[in-house]
């Protein structure tokens, strides 16, 4: 005996009401609850009663604990992957060229001239694709859940300095002292941000491939 689409929606709604937003967790729990309900229905219990019985186990607190456990695992995994990815990137020639180029452009842009502005434009072109990534991340928000989105947003926030700094480079409102601090901050954050963004995109691609059925 299998649950109908409508009955499954009722189960899904129960999880939504209890703020289980991460699809990865929700689909799994819906399936588990559905199996338990089907088991009870095979013994002659009606859907409503079976659902009420199963709901007794999947309380708000129980689901919250499961969600938190998943979040812990995910955060730990992302941190570990970040370190591994960073180690890999440090010896990656393409990555080093990109960073060296950024350093070079940043030094040139230290003072505003026409040539520096042109280099600034180059910097802008180099970094602009990253900002379009956020659109994809928001589109896929429901798939990855709030936690994943927040991780992406932090990645984007880290990348913001490189864009925000551009007008500052060509502005004379900032004194040299501030410029140096901002420049150092930007240069330190950029490699971290690049690796973090790459990692998140890779993870999101993996999840999307796993859940390709949703897009059918």
């Amino acid at each position, binding site marked *: 005996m299998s649950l109908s689409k409508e009955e499954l929606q009722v189960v899904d709604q129960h999880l939504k009401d209890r703020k289980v937003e991460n699809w990865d967790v929700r689909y799994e729990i819906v*399936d*588990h609850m*559905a199996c338990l309900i089907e088991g009870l229905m095979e013994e002659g219990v009606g859907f409503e009663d079976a659902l009420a019985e199963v709901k007794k186990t999947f309380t708000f607190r*129980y689901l919250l604990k499961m969600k938190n*456990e*998943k979040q812990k695992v*995910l955060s730990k995994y992302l941190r570990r992957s970040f370190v591994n990815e960073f180690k890999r990137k440090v010896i990656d020639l393409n990555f080093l060229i990109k960073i060296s180029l950024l350093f070079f452009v940043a030094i040139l842009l230290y003072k505003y001239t026409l040539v520096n502005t042109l280099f600034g434009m180059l910097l802008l072109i180099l970094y602009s694709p990253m900002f379009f990534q956020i659109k994809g991340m928001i589109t896929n928000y429901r798939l990855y859940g709030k936690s994943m989105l927040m991780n992406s947003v932090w990645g984007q926030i880290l990348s913001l300095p490189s864009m925000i700094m551009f007008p500052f480079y060509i502005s004379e409102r900032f004194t040299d002292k501030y410029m140096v601090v901002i420049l150092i901050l930007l240069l330190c954050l950029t490699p971290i941000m690049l690796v973090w963004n790459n990692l998140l995109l890779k993870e999101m691609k993996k999840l999307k491939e*796993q859940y390709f*059925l949703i897009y059918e």
Partner: protein
Amino acid sequence: MFVVEFETMSNSKLYKGSLATIILKLLSQQDKMYGYEITQKVKGLTKGELNITEGALYPALHKLEADGVLEVEVMRVDNRLRKYYKLTEKGEKETVSKLAELEEYIKNMQVLFNPKFGLE
């Protein structure tokens, strides 16, 4: 009947440490399994004496997946999506070492608690 639930019984701590090994062992015998199937399999094999709760099973599965020991395959079954877990290459090696470790542990426990040759 004495039912051990991983989350509620105090002596479940002994079992909790072996949960990953239990999952790996089951997956080494079957190509792929999903969460509910694992709980039912354990219940069936232990004649209902061992009951793995969802709150213990899923975090363990997610951790093994994050460690690269398990990989996931999502399939559509009966109007819903089902997440199957299967061992990776790393997982197969991990299973062998975990089982050897557990076997060694059981052997040592038997020596220690055997009334003839043990602590008494």
